């Protein structure tokens, strides 16, 4: 009887979370799968929406752009965040000030920073004015298909690096000092201390940062929508923007749902591979 009561109490306290997961996660996911299998005007399930999007050069291009973007942005952000975390982990007089400065962009809503960056990126804007004294001619930035994606990467990294750095600093501060002392006595140099103490000890926070950053970058939307709307010539048409365009601008719910399912599968595969890799490397270093 007591056990049963405890179960009820547990259920009662868990109910908000369970209901939220069902209503906000599982149900929409099922709805997306349902619509993705319904072709326009069709009454029975088929893979027509999937055949359609994979036959559509715009969607294929957006997948390709998303892959290129992910391959560049994730290592870049994590390397920068790790570098800054190592730097900021030192007890220097103004570390607090610099940490705050690096973390500050996180406190600004992404949409607001995008609007500000849009003004800076204008061909007659701030960045070109700063570059001019160094003899660098006016750059087209967001108006050029060769530079627009790089501009987006710069903007999201400006926001993201500080955020991910905070997790890594927390991880660094968790590493017992005794480990460093031990390897120093063994004669380890700076690189060896980093390679054999810091990195293995940082495996858990790094795994988290790697996975969370990858997912966040797959889902980047506001900067693209505000800065380029996927252009010029589809060069920044990341998959979230493509899904949005299909669902809300062209009103093609079926193909948007199919694209969403493809995105979810893609993210799942990448994250699973990442978990596997991080675990493997963890096993080896033990």
């Amino acid at each position, binding site marked *: 009887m007591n056990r049963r009561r405890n179960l009820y109490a547990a259920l009662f306290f868990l109910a908000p979370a369970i209901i939220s997961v069902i209503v906000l996660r599982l149900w929409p996911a099922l709805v997306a799968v349902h619509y993705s299998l319904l072709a326009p005007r069709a009454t029975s399930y088929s893979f027509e929406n999937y055949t359609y999007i994979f036959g559509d050069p715009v969607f294929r291009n957006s997948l390709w752009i998303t892959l290129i973007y992910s391959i560049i942005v994730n290592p870049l952000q994590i390397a920068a965040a790790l570098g800054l975390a190592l730097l900021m982990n030192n007890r220097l007089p103004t570390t607090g000030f610099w940490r705050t400065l690096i973390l500050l962009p996180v406190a600004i809503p992404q949409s607001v920073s995008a609007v500000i960056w849009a003004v800076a990126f204008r061909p007659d804007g701030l960045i070109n004015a700063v570059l001019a004294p160094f003899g660098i001619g006016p750059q087209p930035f*967001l108006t050029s298909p060769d530079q627009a994606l790089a501009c987006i990467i710069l903007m999201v990294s400006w926001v993201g690096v500080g955020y991910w750095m905070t997790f890594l600093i927390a991880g660094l501060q968790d590493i017992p000092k005794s480990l460093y002392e031990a390897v120093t006595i063994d004669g380890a140099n700076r690189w060896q201390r980093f390679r054999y103490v810091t990195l293995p000890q940082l495996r858990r926070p790094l795994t988290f940062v790697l996975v969370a950053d990858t997912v966040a970058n797959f889902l980047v939307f506001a900067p693209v929508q505000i800065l380029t709307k996927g*252009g010029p010539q589809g060069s920044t048409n990341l998959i979230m923007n493509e899904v949005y365009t299909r669902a809300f601008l062209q009103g093609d719910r*079926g193909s948007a749902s199919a694209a969403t399912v493809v995105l979810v599968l893609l993210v799942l595969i990448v994250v699973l591979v990442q978990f596997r890799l991080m675990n493997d490397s963890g096993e080896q270093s033990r």
Partner: protein
Amino acid sequence: MRSLRTRVGLLLLATSMIAASGAAFAEQVTLNFLTAEKDETVAPVIAGFEKLHPDIKVVHTTVPFDSMNATIEARVGGQDSSIDVFLVDSPRVPAMANRGYLMNLNEFRDAADKVSNDVAMGVVSWKGDMYALPLWTSTQLMYYNKDLLDKAGIPYPGAKEEDRLTYDQVVDLAKKAQAAGAKFGFLPEQIDRYYQLQPLFESIGGGSGLTGPDNLTPDITNPKWIEAAEFYSSLFKDGIAPRGVPNDQMSSVFTSGDVAFYIGGPWQFRPFNAAEGLKYGVAPVPYFKGGKPVVPTDSWAVGISPYAAHPDEAKKFVEYMSINPEGALLSVANNPIPPTNEEAYKTYIDGIAALNPDVGPAAKEIMTYELAKNSVSRPRSIGYVAFEEIMNRAFSDIRNGADVTTTLQQAQDQLNSTLARIQ
């Protein structure tokens, strides 16, 4: 455990009592009104309506112009009852009616017919049914900066129909003004938007871009379309118009005195009059030599969501805005855009003439003949929404220097596959 259960029970009881007492007080009906306008634009018409119907309160929600489509798709498409009335860009009526996003308003047909012309009535109807009430229409003028023209020794273009310049003439004058110090020569208000650019293709004789019985066949790669698109591309390539300035910042290029010629709507009178030190005049929109003069037209209409929580009150509100001349006039009191209500229009156009003694009379003359003779509506098609989105992207690429023929061909291919799904 028991005490927990008792507490939860008490909490639920209290909540339900508060909810019940709230319902007892809620005699006033609240209508939710969604637009892409500023609060101040719709404030006069809402105040006028609330005075007439003290039991109805209208709450205005504004979203950015570019998000209007997405908002309606998400909220009305999601059968959300919290939007009662919304503004709908009139060429989107067929697509929205086809998807069930607009309530049938046939009951207002006779009353609306008496106060609106056939064009205004036509654009809010689809397959013989009426799905919105006409509200505003639009036209465009070519504004010019008097100081920049003076500096270059260019005489002011006339306001009469026969004074209309060709696009090539305007570009020549624009280059002359730039040589004399103007930062930019000639630019359109709404870059990349089909509304603004349709006149280029129609003026040269390339057509609207959609053909076929239901306007579901794209036709944007014909030689005339390519020629007009090359012209648009050259404005930016040659530095006559700036690249990288977003739509909502375009009019500031004119108000800051950086551009000689600027094509825009009558809604610019207010900001331009308010701009300190800006001396401007108006002329008719140019045309292509050998082609015909064409200006864009139509604007927002007002519709009711089929899922509206308060359809009866919503009907009273749209009737007041569209059919009641007083309401129609109040709807443009803070936004000088022509109302479709013919009685309100008479007062409106005299107001335009009085707005600014320098440009008012010329503006009234131009707007009167453009609205009567040279306005071309956007194509009516259930595929218009998708068409517009794809075209706007293509225009953006062309403006940023993409090859014109390739871009139009890609857009045509995309339209073929997208429209095929809509048919």
